[in-house]
């Protein structure tokens, strides 16, 4: 993971003397309730350059850029475009000023065609003609050398293609300042490379690119200048050529020395807790997988290549074909018919607020959600004991705010994940399915989750589904790469070349 995977076509372009910024943010502040998301931020954007906004999740990068894109309004401070102060009432004003943003969750209407999405709000008249619209967008795509079927519905496109549509939207609107919010999260390494090339081409035409990311190596490889955001403030701006090491960059981003590595001692491997044998169906093809107690097996791949289906089948949300999934030695049907609340399987899902917890209930009720059988006496529930145990878990895992009657939605992402982890480990699981367990968490919370998962190996086997290759390489003993519903490779992390082999497999390229 240490070597850079992306190759710059040219060296970093130095900023000419006396260049005038196209966008200037001065002392911009934004609060959400008590939280100060952006605190007096001052930032310049120059034309023809790529500016990276580097920061942890929750540092305020997206908020800042959403203000520039007209989605939020700043509480105080000014924004200038071409030296003139601007106030955006909506995205429309920002678009008119030449600013366009590609959001992390694509802002595309699934049931509409590519052409309709690109031209939405820019149809150029009250009456429209689908054929003419498609021709217009097709011409634009051809002009920029972007291959996409303009009459296809968004729901039929891959994530990479959807991103092209978002880029087409910006190009059509003649945006001069292009903002990309974590654009690589849904791309294969190959698609990422192509995106970077496209970004460089666009800057050569005089456009400015703002690239939001928390991935160090991407930022170093891509940017002409880097601004680090930490806890809503600009921590510093620096020249990528002047960076001595990734660790230095990381510690500036996080604000303290961070170990980007965890210490993973091997644990003795025991009985299999999950066996998938030749499973075909639910969008999966011939999937074979085994997880044993004492090991962590990671499943990686670009989002939407069958990981969700795999997790749903394993965790009992949907029914897999007969005799393909065996959990703790039992066939799927038998396991879920007889499963007990503890010493069994637990699932830490990606969707913490909507699936793993009840948003409008307190922590006691949320503890009971999966452990209720342990607190049942006949038909009654022992709420007293549940309250005591909740208090104890809050202390043990340092969950804030430390009140048992706090509602789930009041917890921050990291605290909520700790609460879910606390509850699921309380069940003393033998098999853990963890899905994107550290997504959106800050570094200290991430480290804690990693440590807990590694500790859990003493009693359990872990199936780790993640989009973060770093996480997979850190934690897992073996990594399964998924592509279009198949497992294309099973790579042991003990081998040195594993890191470099994952990328091609994610894109479906076998050696």
């Amino acid at each position, binding site marked *: 993971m240490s070597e850079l995977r992306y190759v710059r076509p040219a060296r970093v372009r130095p900023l000419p003397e006396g260049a005038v910024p196209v966008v200037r943010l001065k002392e911009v502040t934004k609060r959400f309730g008590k939280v100060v998301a952006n605190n007096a931020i001052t930032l310049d954007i120059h034309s023809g350059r790529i500016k990276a906004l580097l920061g942890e999740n929750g540092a305020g990068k997206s908020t800042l850029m959403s203000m520039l894109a007209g989605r939020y309004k700043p509480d105080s401070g000014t924004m200038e475009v071409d030296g003139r102060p601007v106030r955006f009432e909506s995205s429309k004003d920002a678009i008119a000023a030449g600013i366009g943003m590609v959001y992390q969750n694509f802002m595309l209407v699934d049931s509409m065609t590519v052409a309709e999405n690109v031209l939405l709000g820019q149809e150029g008249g009250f009456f429209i003609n689908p054929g003419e619209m498609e021709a217009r967008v097709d011409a634009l795509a051809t002009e920029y050398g972007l291959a996409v079927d303009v009459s296809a519905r968004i729901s039929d496109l891959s994530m990479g293609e959807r991103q092209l549509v978002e880029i087409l939207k910006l190009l059509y609107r003649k945006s001069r300042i292009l903002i990309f919010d974590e654009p690589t999260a849904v791309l294969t390494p190959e698609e990422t490379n192509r995106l970077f090339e496209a970004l460089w081409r666009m800057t050569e035409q005089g456009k400015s690119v703002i690239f939001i990311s928390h991935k160090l190596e991407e930022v170093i490889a891509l940017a002409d200048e880097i601004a680090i955001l930490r806890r809503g403030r600009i921590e510093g701006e620096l020249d990528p050529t002047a960076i001595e090491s990734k660790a230095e960059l990381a510690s500036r981003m996080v604000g303290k020395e961070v170990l980007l590595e965890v210490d993973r001692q091997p644990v003795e491997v025991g009985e299999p807790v999950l066996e998938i044998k030749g499973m075909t169906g639910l969008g999966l093809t011939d999937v074979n997988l085994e997880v044993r107690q004492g090991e962590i097996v990671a499943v990686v791949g670009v989002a939407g290549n069958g990981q969700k289906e795999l997790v749903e089948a394993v965790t009992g949300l949907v029914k897999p074909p007969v005799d393909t999934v065996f959990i703790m030695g039992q066939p799927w049907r038998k396991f879920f018919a007889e499963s007990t609340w503890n010493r069994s399987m637990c699932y830490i899902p990606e969707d913490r607020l909507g*699936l793993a917890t009840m948003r409008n209930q307190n922590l006691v009720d949320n503890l009971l959600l999966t452990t*209720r059988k342990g607190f049942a006496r006949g038909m009654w529930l022992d709420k007293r004991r549940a309250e005591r145990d909740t208090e104890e878990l809050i202390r043990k895992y340092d969950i804030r705010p430390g009140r048992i009657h706090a509602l789930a939605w009041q917890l921050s992402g990291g605290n909520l994940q700790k609460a879910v982890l606390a509850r699921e480990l309380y069940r003393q699981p033998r098999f853990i399915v963890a899905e994107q367990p550290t997504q959106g968490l800050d570094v200290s919370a991430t480290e804690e989750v990693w440590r807990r998962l590694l500790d859990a190996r003493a009693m359990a086997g872990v199936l780790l589904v993640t989009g973060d290759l770093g996480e997979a390489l850190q934690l897992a003993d073996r990594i399964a790469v998924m592509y279009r519903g198949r497992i294309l490779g099973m790579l042991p992390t003990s081998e040195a070349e594993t890191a470099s082999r994952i990328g091609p497999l994610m894109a479906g390229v076998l050696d």
Partner: protein
Amino acid sequence: MALKIRKRDEPWKWGALVIFLGALLFSLGVSCLLLAGQGKDALHGMFILWEGSFGNLWALEGALLKAIPLFLCSLGVAVAFRMQIWNIGAEGQFALGAIGATWMALSFPGLPWYGLMPLMFAMAFLLGGAWAFIPAVLKLKLRVNEIISTLMLNYIAILLLDYLVFGVWKDPTSFGFPMTPEFTSGAVIAGIGSSRVHWGLLFCAVVGVGLWAFMRFTRLGFELKASGEGARVARYAKIRYGLLTMFVMGLSGGFAGWAGCIETSAVLNRLQPSLMVGYGYTAIVVAWLARLEPLNIAFGAFLLAALRVGVENLQLELQIPAAFGVIMEGMILLTVLAGQFFLTYRIERAPREGGE
């Protein structure tokens, strides 16, 4: 001065009550305008409304009497709404309960009350529950929208009731009026002492406390609450959502069925079309105003029952159409819904922008 919307960090503790009172005041204000529009003295009208609702013992008895079926229907509606199942069918389930009770009362006229009452209540629960069970099954198996199916079953139930009292169950001695023969004494719920209020009140109290305890202290009650957060959470928690849906709908319909049974037996002493006065719809208003909490429902049912009684008084004294009460119900509910905005948001003065 610029105003700004902010999401609340903490729930607004007494907000629900404040909003409810505000909505009540607003609706009363609009009602005054309606009265004035009819050429009546609005303040005098309000006084008559108050007199009719709470002014004397007779009025209070009347309100309690009407609160009984409302309370039961509303409990049923609330249980279903808690699970985000939109059971709009209390009216029809109420009718089926009445039909079930009548069936038993007419079939076994000779039985004493301790033999007949259990039969009537059981059949009312069964038929009311079955009437709600149909939409539940349709929703689960065929994903048929329960709002529409429960509502259509209301129309069908009322027509079924009509069919019975105009046809097979018609009292031959009723001079052609659509009604069944009067129930025998064993099928009539007696009044408490010399008051008009009958023992159904006690039944309500028992059911209400029972449901409250069930929701709060039992595992099934907890699972029901958890399912209210959505089918996905329920599946995650390995709660048998489908089974629970059917159980809850059965319970919901059963409660409305009991309301129908009590109303037929204690108030009308026979089955006739005038039984259907829209308690099932008012129950939805009560349930939502009470934020689906059993104790609040008791208050809400009493309040809206009192409103009905008051409107009857208004009708008598000032010749105001009975629909006046319906308008008030709709208006209170609509205003409360609008007001609930302030439970999640607050409006505050925007700080001055930096550059201006």
